[in-house]
């Protein structure tokens, strides 16, 4: 299976290990992975700041880079959601439509397309799951505490396949961490307070790591944890799923 790997800009710049883990994991599972070299930011930061019209260039570039793939996979619920909801192309609306339907967040690609049931991975730590809102409420990667429906969790399902891992959830199982894109600087005070409150609940569970499917949320939590001098670390789900410790 040929997969176009979409690596969001902040992963590329600051968390290359997440991209590497994603690529290795997909290859391990038999995919032929290609990373289109001219890809850049998907335009989400601008669109969420009210400048969707400025992100046309991003859209065009995205379409140019990813039009040849049956599956496009990214280790970020947030960026995938943005592409799914907002990718447009004036020159080639059909192609944009095809891409919107072919883009997958990593965990849903593993559970729904590859349908994996076992995984050769081990990670002998206490891990707290952070449900990122865009993945959860946007892409429905797991059931949501607000709606009356059977419970499920695609990331939880995958983490259960990892040997040695002890999974826990914070008390408020899916409250937002406060990253929120540019919200994290425009509403700095609320953003940080929300992050601190998430961390408090995870540390109450005495976790070694907080994990999730969006590096943006994790980067925000990591920034606070480090400032607090905490021993708790953050790690992207892809890194755990690719890990053999």
């Amino acid at each position, binding site marked *: 299976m040929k997969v176009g790997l979409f690596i969001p800009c902040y992963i590329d710049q600051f968390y290359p290990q997440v991209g590497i883990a994603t690529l290795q994991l997909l290859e391990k599972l038999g995919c032929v992975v290609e990373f289109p070299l001219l890809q850049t930011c998907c335009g989400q930061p601008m669109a969420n700041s009210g400048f969707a019209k400025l992100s046309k260039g991003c859209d065009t570039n995205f379409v140019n880079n990813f039009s040849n793939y049956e599956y496009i996979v990214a280790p970020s619920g947030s960026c995938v959601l943005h592409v799914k909801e907002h990718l447009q192309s004036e020159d080639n609306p059909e192609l944009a439509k095809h891409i919107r339907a072919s883009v997958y967040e990593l965990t849903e690609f593993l559970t729904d397309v590859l349908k994996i049931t076992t995984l050769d991975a081990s990670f002998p730590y206490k891990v707290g799951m952070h449900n990122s809102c865009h993945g959860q409420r946007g892409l429905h990667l797991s059931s949501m505490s607000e709606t009356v429906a059977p419970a499920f969790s695609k990331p939880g399902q995958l983490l259960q396949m990892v040997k040695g891992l002890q999974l826990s959830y914070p008390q408020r199982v899916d409250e937002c961490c406060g990253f*929120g894109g*540019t919200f994290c600087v425009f509403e700095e005070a609320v953003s940080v307070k929300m992050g601190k409150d998430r961390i408090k609940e995870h540390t109450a569970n005495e976790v070694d790591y907080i994990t999730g499917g969006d590096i943006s949320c994790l980067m*925000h939590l990591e920034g606070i944890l480090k400032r607090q001098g905490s021993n708790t670390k953050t790690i992207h789900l892809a890194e755990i799923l690719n890990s053999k410790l």
Partner: protein
Amino acid sequence: MKDHASLAEQFIKDEARTDWHDETLWFVRQKRDKAAYGLPEWEQLRTWASEIKDHTLSALDNYLVEFETNAIANGIKVHWAVDAAAHNKIVYDIMKAQGVKKLVKSKSMLTEECHLNEYLQQQGIEVVDTDLGERIVQFRKEPPSHIVLPAIHLKKQEVSDTFHEHLQTEKGNNDPQYLTHAARLHLREKFIESSVAITGVNFAVAETGGFVVCTNEGNADMGAHAAKVHIACMGFEKIIPKAAHLSVFLRLLARSATGQPITTYSSHFNKPRHGQELHVVIVDNGRSRQLGREDFRNSLKCIRCAACFNTCPVYRRSGGYSYHTAVAGPIGAILNPNLDVQAYSDLPFASTLCGSCTNVCPVKIDIHQQLWKWRQVVTEEAKVPISKKMGMRFMAWILDCNVNYKAAGKIGRWVMRNLPFLVKNKLNPWYKQREMPDAPKESFKEWYIKNKKA
């Protein structure tokens, strides 16, 4: 100029109190969850409610006329107000005709939106708010901070101090039971004396020409049934087609609001009682304009349950006043820009777009999607530079973004270098309470080219 971010920052300075506020409202959210999970048909009910409201909006003029015709036949006097000023004048004219100088009022967010109290006070009329929470904030000369729980920002000691000052309760007695009882005695006198009562309207039924008012305290009924004149004020979106539809909304409203299976009183007013005057004031005040905005019209489906407030992680940590308007919270952030896009351009940004509001909304308003869409409108329409509302850092970033976009035409790459949370700069608000991510030896792309590119 007031903006959400700086008012919120002010609020959060008292972290212990912020925690208390957050936990109090989270508790209400949990009660809502429990009530919702108690009904296997919950999601079906939301769908029905949403569809009834969609349908109603699509035939709103017909239903309003049907309501009016039936209400008049019932002996109700119907008034129409294009805006807040017209609404206030209608109420005042009724007061003048009665020759009375005071009235009791039960909770009505519409009258808050229209600033009726201030207006009537200027005309020399005494308004007594009778909802306990509203009475508390009225004594304190504060507006409500929440549409269902007006005094949720106050601690019982503060209520006790206020009542000590205004109702001569025992100093330092903070017992809610004691304080509530004091208010009961005080307000019973007001109910009995008052010849005019104002209530809100939760639902107006086109088919019957009657309307329903929901309270737990019984204050709407105490006021309305004791007074010679009852004035009910409603935004025109309160209309529903049939009485049978009330079942859907009454099942959702209190469960969403407080987790109760229904409010204590769901009062159905159809006709004035013998010798009483009953007025209904139907208010537009920007609603018909909102109806014309395709992206935003379904905000008019709102039944004011405040579930979106209680679930909102931003509201819980910034308080009602940070929204600097009568209707705060997520719904306020999509309603207020319609009233004044300049004054409220900051509100659509007071959200992480987490989507929890949309999930709890009993009438399925796509609140977080509308917040996103309002951002697009605000950046187009707001004439006041957004920098004033959003802080310089926002403007600087956006301007840069604009300039660089036009200059370089390569917006994506520009963003990668200039994401506000990645710029290594001590003035960067990211850095105030958070460390920057470590810079790796190489980017993913560099690694890929080195290791993978065949």
